[in-house]
């Protein structure tokens, strides 16, 4: 896995499906993964003769919002172009995309204080899907075309080659996803194909300016796969170069099953897409007032919110990063604090219990729970159960605590009977402790928790110690 002596250079091309009801150029629903083949199609996205595209305004708006959130410049004039190539998943024989006048250019995404430059964000349409009967493409006896995806809007977000490791590439993709979800431009779920990351990777000697020969990776379906695919590719290229070979410029697929990349197609013969302006769509003039309106409507972006969580609530930076990464969690945090709970314990509960389970309580319930724990009314273990039950039933933690009799008992006279009972039932442990084996205390406490779960652990252990001595 060593790439010592080489600098890793990564650029990312990310395709994101903006949140729209209909396709890019027709009224078809964008549909869901798993819809029956060719069920979300019409004469337009099927590329029937005589049909024409019409631009989906919601897609343009999502693209502009994304461009603004990525600090891009939005030129006044933009247009669509045809990218010509013939393949059965491309009904018109060309893809409507953007070539020399994209919707936006020259932005950046802040990543741990470093800027990853964004070269452009443009709009285009997705292609359909081919399904081949048989194991291998060249041996398939039949191929099937599903055009549900054909014409689904895509934003293409392209970075400069500014990323330097698999970690950074993954962090960029995660941060981008967070940003897109925060501004409502996309659901950006990788598993649903709404976010597709295609990194290109090359190596060069540190200190050199010139870029090495790059490979482009496809078929990456998760952030983990993104990290692994890049790591694999870095190792592979290192080995090739160390053994005196040269990297071939090509597209490589990531095999999840084999956990390796494999050659898909060589770029030795650059395909000529014969781009030219799409004559069926007049050039777009983006009104400055529209951009201003969208800019004003943007919510607080994750980077800014992270800073505010530290300064306003005194959270440690590590907590702020985790909470700001998810708009829902950050909203929950701020609302729970507003409902009267202490910030740090709220953060702990969100990071430790809410985020991992994905079970999100109402802010009022979370605040109530945190207050019950802080007041010593219930134990943490009990609180976890109360939290789950509260999310499932929608009932308030106080109500649940009362119902289960979970409320902690801190009254010594009540607890004394229980402690004495435990001591009587475990005479050996009592003897061991009195003989100097201090660890026997743990066993007695465990027994006490079993017998009296509602006992306040602090009061109970003090009482136990006093009775033993």
């Amino acid at each position, binding site marked *: 896995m060593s790439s010592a002596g080489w600098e890793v250079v990564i650029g990312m091309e990310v395709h994101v499906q903006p949140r729209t009801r209909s396709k890019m150029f027709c009224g078809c629903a964008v549909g869901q993964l798993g819809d029956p083949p060719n069920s979300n199609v019409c*004469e337009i996205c*099927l*590329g*029937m*003769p*005589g*049909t*024409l*595209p*019409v*631009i989906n305004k919601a897609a343009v708006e999502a693209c502009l919002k994304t461009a603004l959130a990525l600090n891009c410049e939005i030129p006044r004039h933009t247009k669509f172009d*045809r990218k*010509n190539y*013939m*393949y*059965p998943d491309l*009904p*018109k*024989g*060309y893809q409507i995309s953007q070539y020399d006048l994209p919707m936006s250019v020259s932005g950046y995404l802040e990543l741990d204080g470093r800027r990853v430059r964004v070269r452009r964000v443009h709009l285009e349409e997705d292609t359909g899907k081919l399904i081949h009967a048989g194991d291998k493409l060249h041996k398939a006896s039949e*191929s099937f*075309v599903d055009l549900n995806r054909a014409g689904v809007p895509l934003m293409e977000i392209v970075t400069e080659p500014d990323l330097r490791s698999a970690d950074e590439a993954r962090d960029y993709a995660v941060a981008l996803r967070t940003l897109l979800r925060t501004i409502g431009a996309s659901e950006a779920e990788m598993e649903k194909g709404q976010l597709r990351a295609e990194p290109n990777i090359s190596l060069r000697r540190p200190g050199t300016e010139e870029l090495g020969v790059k490979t482009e990776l496809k078929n990456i379906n998760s952030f983990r796969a993104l990290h692994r695919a890049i790591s694999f590719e870095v190792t592979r290229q290192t080995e090739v170069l160390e053994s005196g070979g040269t990297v071939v410029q090509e597209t490589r697929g990531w095999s999840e099953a084999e956990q390796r990349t494999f050659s898909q197609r060589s770029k030795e013969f650059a395909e*000529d897409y*014969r*781009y*030219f302006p799409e*004559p*069926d*769509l*007049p050039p777009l003039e983006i009104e400055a007032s529209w951009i201003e309106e969208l800019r004003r409507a943007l919510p607080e972006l994750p980077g800014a919110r992270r800073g505010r969580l530290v300064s306003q609530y005194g959270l440690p930076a590590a907590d702020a990063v985790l909470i700001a990464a998810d708009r829902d969690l950050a909203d929950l945090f701020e609302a729970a604090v507003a409902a009267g709970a202490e910030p740090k314990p709220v953060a702990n509960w969100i990071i430790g219990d809410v985020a991992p389970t994905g079970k999100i309580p109402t802010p009022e319930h979370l605040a109530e729970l945190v207050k019950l724990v802080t007041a010593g009314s219930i134990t943490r273990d009990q609180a976890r159960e109360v939290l789950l039950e509260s999310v499932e039933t929608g009932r308030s933690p106080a109500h649940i605590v009362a119902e289960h009799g979970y409320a902690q008992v801190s009254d010594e006279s009540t607890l004394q009977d229980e402690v004495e009972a435990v001591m009587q039932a475990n005479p050996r442990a009592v003897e061991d402790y009195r003989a100097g084996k201090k660890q026997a205390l743990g066993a007695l406490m465990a027994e006490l928790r079993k017998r009296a779960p509602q006992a306040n652990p602090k009061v109970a252990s003090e009482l136990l110690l006093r009775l033993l001595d």
Partner: protein
Amino acid sequence: MSDLTELTIREAAKLLRLHSFSAAELVTAHINLIERIDSRVKAFLRFTPELWEKQAEAADARISSGDMGPLVGIPMAVKDVLCVRGVETTAGSQILRGFRPPYTGTAASRLFDAGAVMLGVTNCDEFAMGSSTENSGYHPTHNPWSLDRVPGGSSGGSAAAVASGEAMIALGTDTGGSIRQPAALCGVVGMKPTYGRVSRYGLIAFASSLDQIGPFTRSVEDAAIVLDAMAGHDPLDATSSNRPNDVLRDLEAGVKGMKLGVPREYYDVEGMEPVVKAAIDKAIKNFRDAGAEIIDVTLPHTDYGLAAYYIIAPAECSSNLARFDGVRYGMSEVDAQNVTEAYMRTRRRGFGTEVRRRVMLGTYALSSGYYDAYYLKAQKVRTLIKRDFDLAFEKCDAIISATSPTVAFPIGSKTQDPLSMYLCDVLTLGGNLAGLPGISVPCGMSEDLLPIGLQIMAPQWREDVALRVGRAYEVASGVKAEVAPFV
């Protein structure tokens, strides 16, 4: 009943209201004539009895209920590039044989709504590429005035149908002259509206930035009526517009006080036949007598127009025709080793020579390394040509010229020489490059009874001007479209 097939829309509309005949009888008269002569003219590729029966019945019901719409019950032919739901539509090409679109294009649909009755589908050059209808993937069409001559093209079937009386109106498309030139050669009125005036939805594209749908009729007023019914913005065509189109209001206002420009580059165009020039001279005199001022104008980049056109149109066509791959509709040669071979077989068999030539020309012009020298340069020329017209229209209200430098030529005389065929459009394609409205009106005949056409071009969105000047010419000259006689 032969006179039923010689009426204009206005005349027929009036007689239908007087119950001189029904819409069903009007259709029948046209079908009878078609049965008698279309084996000689071959204007039609297919007939649509299932439509004309229903539509004529509906038209009669509308007339009984007092509907005064001028197009109710009017028999119409539709060029084979315009999709009509359930009707085989092939763009004159074998590659689309059997294709029945599940949708109706906006222009045809609006005319159906206005009450027009569809008789059938008319022949054309394959994918509208040609000026003689000889490039049809099915058969050539014959000029009703002289059966051994071409009707012009690419909308030759529509022009011949209206000229022969087989249809009262017909729809065509004009990419470089494909409505105006056959109208001239067949002696009928043909109009290409401003680019964007009529929705292209449902028009099987040849060159998207040049294509425009327009009517063939036997009077200028009829052309205005049809245009009025199909014009206007369509949510399905982003290039369509809702600019005012008041074409009937000042139709009879005449040309008194108007300035009509005669571009010297058009007047003295190479290959102009003396009989055509004489007819244009006479038309100029008619206009002068009617009170118009005739002025010289210049369109200095005319010479480059043809070259620019034959880069831009093939470039767009090479992309527009990529969808004909045999995967989803039309001809499909799937018995192949791989997908590329299947494409090549389908397209080699399905496309004719001229279509293949233009796809190759266009592919080349858009190729990396050639794009700047060809496509980009052609677009710059296009801008210069637009400017030529803009400057000319600062000096005049409309531009007049011949529509075609020649009368109809014998079938087969130009098929071996594509360049001579391309020259047929030299006076019309400027209007497409600049997006202007233009109309061709009959302007007399040669001694051997071959029609001559007068072209009137107006500034963008001024169809009203072109039609008004055309109407003034009908009045001043007394020349009207006549139905070709058949024995």
